[in-house]
């Protein structure tokens, strides 16, 4: 059941990314590029996505997940430097190429070589993060000593 629901959720997500044009890097960069020929499509996508999710959060107050367990609690960690720095790095990469993780996955089969190169680099970045943060922590410990 858990696997089937995950497949359905992923299917809806992938179909949504495809029909909304969010795997078209020109549309995404067109939205981010407020100094150029601005394209408002992404606002419709985000607005459309927020509606069912807001209803879902409301329903989640009174219902448990279908497969059991608990609805995730709101994050306890505050808005911290890690969140802001990570989002700044992500946003820079998003602006450069026009792909964020969802569309990067959805477009793998039809985007051509460029999408595959981007995806591999993105996965490398995801794997590298623990190594980078560990090295940074080690350096600051050495500096403190």
């Amino acid at each position, binding site marked *: 059941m*858990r*696997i089937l*629901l995950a497949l*359905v*959720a*992923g*299917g*809806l*997500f*992938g179909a*949504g*990314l*495809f*029909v*909304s044009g969010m*795997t078209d890097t020109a549309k995404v*960069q067109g939205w*981010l*590029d407020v*100094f150029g020929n601005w394209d*408002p499509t992404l606002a*419709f*996508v985000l*607005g*459309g*996505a*927020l509606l*069912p999710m807001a*209803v*879902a*959060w409301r329903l989640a107050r009174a219902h448990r997940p279908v*497969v*059991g367990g*608990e*609805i995730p609690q709101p994050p306890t960690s505050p808005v911290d430097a*890690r*969140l*802001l*720095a*990570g*989002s*700044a790095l*992500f*946003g820079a990469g998003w602006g*450069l190429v026009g*792909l*964020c*993780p*969802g569309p990067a*996955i*959805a*477009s793998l089969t*039809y985007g*051509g070589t*460029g999408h595959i190169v*981007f995806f591999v*680099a993105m996965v*490398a*970045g*995801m794997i590298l993060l623990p190594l980078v943060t560990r090295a940074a922590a080690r350096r600051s410990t050495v500096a403190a000593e």
Partner: protein
Amino acid sequence: MIDPDWIWGLVGGVLIGLGGAVYLLGNGRIMGASGILGGLVDGSGRRSAGERLAFLAGVVLLPVLLLPLYGTVDTHITENAVVLIAGGLLVGLGTRLANGCTSGHGVCGMSRLSARGIAATVVYLAAGGLALLIFRHGLGVV
């Protein structure tokens, strides 16, 4: 004037939100693309690997099924390998550092009025705009 792209954006957006609603109310999980993929590739989500793989399979499969209706899709991606690799590394590192991307922080976080979700979204939108200001309008490389 209503651009048909805006209608398709809205339709696609609703589908994305429905995906998030199914994942939340069905499996009790937040639908974040970077977290689902990241937990799989760095090994931190090994215990839920089946669920993660099923989700990712759905994301890849539906565009394949819809593609024949569209013929070919031009995604207008840059051919500059340095930009592709730098952008990919930044997106991978940044989303894992921030613990979320456009789907997790933007769609799921903002819809529950999470301060972290809203803060992350403001920052990555601003950073994206700034990157284009510098690298498109300034340096002309993207």
